[in-house]
């Protein structure tokens, strides 16, 4: 009977709702609490949808973004909703479509350029840096470039050396760019909306493995006018014994490591979600270190010249006297990423690496042998 079936549907609620292919926000309700959750993928999709609806100049360009619904389905449903003029499938030339995107931004459009992964952005890096980042300055304010370059960054799982590099340090060093690294769905929504609305070029580094992860999301974050400020880090977990800075997927690892440390060692760790690599929120980081006196940085990129190096230098410059221990950086192994699962696991920071580093800076275990 229809009534009976619909009651069952309502009771199941969650799982059937998930199947509905709606381009708009996909919320799911967990049955235990009334908390609303959203995957990062849906958060990005909804942010793009809302910004495209709000401003007809916003358009998306990239490989497979249209007919294929997006290589990672981030742009799902947008071609149907906005048409091929605003969701443009491109030939295989990152240099080409990045350059074309920059040119369209020169003349008033607001492109969102998708790189299938940021590894491919290296083909287009001249346009990102020389044509986008530096244009406003070189033209003395006559040419501004309100462009967003987005896509997955860093390692996924088993994709090999040429698909696993993290570019946060590369782009983070360029004046004229803004570099954002969302973690949760709220980060994804708020930062992507802010990026699209920003008049400066923004590099928006996502993470493929986070796309499918669900996070609780507030009603405020679901509102279409929601925006997060660029350049402000978020303290995900307050603590008093040690500061852990992380971004993207590593925030999740740091939070798990903090739980383990609390339970097993009684160490109360403060976890900072950077959210923004450039501008880097030096104030929040330094205020935290002045409180805890110990710092470790976590990232998935290569160690030399990485984000952790910059944070360490910043803290040494601003809060040297407050440090009770040397700063430790946790980063990827200094090798091109191996493919075999066991090797790959050892090539990237794991939760136990973070726990180990915290114990070392808290002098609960011996320091590692210094490497040249």
């Amino acid at each position, binding site marked *: 009977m229809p009534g009976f079936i619909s009651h069952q549907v309502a009771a199941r609620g969650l799982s059937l709702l998930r199947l509905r292919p709606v381009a708009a926000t996909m919320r799911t309700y967990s049955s235990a609490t009334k908390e609303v959750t959203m995957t990062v993928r849906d958060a990005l999709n909804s942010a793009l949808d809302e910004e495209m609806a709000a401003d007809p100049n916003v358009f998306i360009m990239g490989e497979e973004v249209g007919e294929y619904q997006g290589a990672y389905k981030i742009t799902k449903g947008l071609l149907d909703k906005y048409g091929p003029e605003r969701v443009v499938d491109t030939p295989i*030339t990152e240099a080409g479509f990045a350059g074309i995107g920059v040119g369209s931004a020169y003349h008033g459009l607001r492109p969102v350029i998708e790189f299938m992964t940021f590894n491919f952005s290296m083909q287009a890096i001249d346009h990102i840096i020389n044509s986008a980042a530096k244009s406003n300055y070189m033209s003395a304010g006559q040419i501004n470039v309100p462009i967003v370059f987005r896509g997955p960054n860093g390692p996924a799982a088993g994709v090999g050396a040429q698909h696993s590099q993290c570019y946060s340090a590369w782009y983070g060093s360029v004046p004229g760019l803004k570099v954002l690294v969302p973690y949760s769905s709220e980060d994804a929504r708020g930062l992507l909306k802010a990026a699209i609305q920003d008049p400066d070029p923004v590099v928006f580094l996502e993470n493929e493995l986070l796309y499918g992860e669900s996070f609780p999301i507030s009603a405020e974050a679901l509102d279409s006018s929601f925006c997060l400020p660029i350049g402000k880090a978020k303290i995900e977990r307050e603590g008093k014994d040690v500061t852990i800075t992380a971004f993207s997927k590593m925030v999740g690892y740091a939070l798990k490591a903090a739980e383990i440390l609390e339970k097993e060692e009684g160490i109360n760790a403060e976890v900072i979600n950077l959210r923004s690599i450039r501008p880097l929120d030096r104030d929040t980081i330094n205020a935290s270190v002045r409180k805890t006196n110990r710092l470790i940085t976590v990232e998935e990129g290569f160690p030399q010249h990485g984000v952790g190096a910059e944070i360490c230098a910043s803290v040494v410059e601003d809060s040297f006297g407050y440090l009770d221990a040397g700063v430790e950086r946790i980063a990827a192994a200094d090798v091109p990423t191996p493919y075999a699962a066991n090797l790959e696991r050892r090539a990237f920071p794991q939760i136990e690496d973070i726990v180990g580093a915290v114990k070392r800076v808290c002098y609960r275990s011996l320091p590692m042998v210094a490497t040249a």
Partner: protein
Amino acid sequence: MASSCFSKSKTIIMRNLKSKNFFMLGFINHTYSITNLQFPRHLLHTISSPPLPVSNYASSSPYNYSIAFSRCFASVYGGRRLNTATSVRNSVDQLSTEAPLQQDLDFPGGRVKFTPKPVFTSSSTEERTPCYRVLNDNGQPILDGDSVKISKELAVKMYTNMVTLQVMDTIFYEAQRQGRISFYLTTIGEEAINIASAAALNYNDFVFPQYREPGVLLWRGFTLQDFADQCFGNKNDNGKGRQMPIHYGSRKHNYFTVASTVGTQIPHAVGAAYSLKMEKQDACTVTYFGDGGSSTGDFHAALNFAAVMEVPVIFFCRNNGWAISTPINDQLRSDGIVVRGKAYGVPSIRVDGNDALAIYSAVHKARKMAIEEQTPVLIEALTYRAGHHSTSDDSTKYRPVDEIERWRGDQNPLKRFRKWIETKGWWSDEAESEHRNGIRKQLSQAIQAAERVEKPPISDIFNDVYDIPSKNLTEQEAFLRRTIQKHAQDYPSNVPM
């Protein structure tokens, strides 16, 4: 073997089994003397076999073999095609003697005739693409020519601008040699390209230059003082002293700031043209680059994209024979750049770059085509870089002096155009010397004035990096100002705070 083709898709085999006879025939390949169905002999890799009896199909070509491929290709048809392919033929029908001969192949991308002879297209054609010109070497119109008529005012304006450009180049070059500016790059030999192309455009057409096109900016109203201010990097420079000389740019004149990167402006122009297309504006974008610039990856991506996106952009290639010291034969082996347009599906024309009237007509027509048909257009202007690449170059080191002299002298574009306007009675020797002297005087005043003006202020170090300066930049500026106050005597006097 035919089987290898068929094995590619199970569905093909399954469908072909509908007609066992056909499948067998593919292999037997000799008894079926028919008027309609012929066999894919080339698939059997028999190169030297004699042609099968030609059908009654009205074609003199001996290569009219048909292939009866079935509906297997239906699934790969995309939404847009290069040619309009019609319906897919049903292989079974081919067996009937009333069905029409199938002359060509239906692959994604459209219909294409096939041939059983493995003929390679030649790397070069015997005849190069002809070059459009209106005036002969003596400045007289070529008979039976076709060009846009221009008025006396326009012709004189074009000529005087060409002279201004030439004089400006000479004087700024000298200024660099005297150490008054750090760098300069001339347009000698390409004045016609600069001025005539600019004259054929509207002011709302966006220009994306390389660096050898200041004449376009001059045409649009950038003053000699503006040029001088940029070269001296003083506080009147609308580029705020941020770039080296000749990197002009002016939003007001729809001339995008010159960047040192070679060829990057080409896809920019395509993107901006896309923006114009979305806005349905009666305007196009124009981008200039040299023969060297056409080797960059950006050139190829941009042309390809522009054709696919159907945007109103004019690609103007100044083929001046030299990319610094690289002569054209070391740069490319195609018939210049004009043939590349065809490769990408872009209508193209080759034009005499030293003939102002030819350039004017070509750009005029190209603009109309680009906007009305929403298509990219490629123009290759053949010319000669009569000056050195820049003040950092001495081209006598890699090319013969008499070659340079020839192009600076007899072959220069001003000479030819001048002859034409003098024949028309619109110009004279007096007018020439009056104009040249006037410009020389203006320039010398402009340079002297520019030299004396203060440099841009300290704040211009830090603004425009972002729309709103970031915190660290504001802090750095404050720190710098404090330092300057503390050590005022060590701070240069011509840099205002």
